[in-house]
């Protein structure tokens, strides 16, 4: 028994240390996540089993730019993680065509929308989301090989008036 343990210990230790390094790297630098759903097509397509690179350095100072594709915890269900495009930052005025209204984003919040407007439940249904829910920013698609590319920021025209 003790011999089996002594034999297995270096492998177990390697796995544990590898896990700690990996977890720390995923929390501080970047991680790879799979895409699910269609709310961000054509930018990100869940049906092709795409994997995206999510960078975490933006979370050090919550420094986001309008048009970034971000990963966030859903305000409706904390276990669910969504990927949307960040359209407006705190203090901006945004025009919501569905409700014919113009709203100002409160301090500490942002407005997120999916690129596939018809098939996305986003800030148009649940309003501005706190920036504290952000979990990272998508910079590249890394799988499958034919879909490897950078995910650029782009903004819908004429909907925002910044502070």
């Amino acid at each position, binding site marked *: 028994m003790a011999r089996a343990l002594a034999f297995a210990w270096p492998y177990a230790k390697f796995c544990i*240390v590898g896990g*700690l*390094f990996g*977890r*720390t790297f995923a*929390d*501080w630098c970047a991680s790879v996540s799979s895409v699910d759903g269609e709310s961000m097509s054509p930018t990100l397509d869940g049906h092709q089993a795409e994997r995206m690179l999510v960078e975490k350095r933006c979370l050090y*100072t*919550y420094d986001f730019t309008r048009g970034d594709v971000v990963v966030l*915890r*859903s*305000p*409706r*269900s*904390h*276990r669910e993680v969504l990927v949307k495009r960040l359209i407006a930052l705190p203090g901006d005025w945004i025009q919501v065509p569905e409700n014919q209204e113009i709203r100002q984003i*409160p*301090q*500490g*919040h942002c407005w997120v929308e999916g690129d596939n407007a018809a098939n996305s439940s986003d800030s148009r249904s649940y309003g501005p*989301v*706190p*920036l*504290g*829910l*952000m979990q990272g920013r998508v910079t590249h698609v890394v799988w499958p090989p034919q879909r490897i590319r950078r995910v650029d920021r782009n903004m819908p025209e004429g909907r925002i008036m910044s502070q």
Partner: protein
Amino acid sequence: MSGFFRRLAGIPWRSIAGDAFSRALLVAQAYCAVHVVDQHLCSLAFVRGPSMLPAINLAGDVLAVDRVSARLGRVENGDVVLMISPEDPRKVVAKRVLGMEGDSVTYLVDPGNSDASKTVVVPQGHVWVQGDNIYASKDSRQFGAVPYGLITGKIFCRVSSVISFASLSF
């Protein structure tokens, strides 16, 4: 001059580099272990301010934070939680949970000046948080119910009362 270079070449650079690398690796492993435990298991937090009097001191208390139950969704009414402030994501605040999703919460709108109260139903995926000291607390009465995802940990123990830092001032 050439004696200096000869001594330089005689130093065992390879084994020094090997030693330095293995020590650096040890430090890196220790840092990663501390980070993982602190972010995902259990942590200590120094909390101060008037909003949670009398539970938490004005001058500050060191509290033990349980990160596992918050992530598993095991936060209930009455728990004191650490959460990211909905008004500034760089700030972490401690408040008490008074309503889970679906609960109906009645609160005093302006406790110092009037008895008026309002009742509100907490939306799906949100919690209602209030400071214990309602006269000096900015909480859900001002910014509304907050999404559960902002909660980073549940406070289960006060550490600084075991080691008491008492300042004597006359």
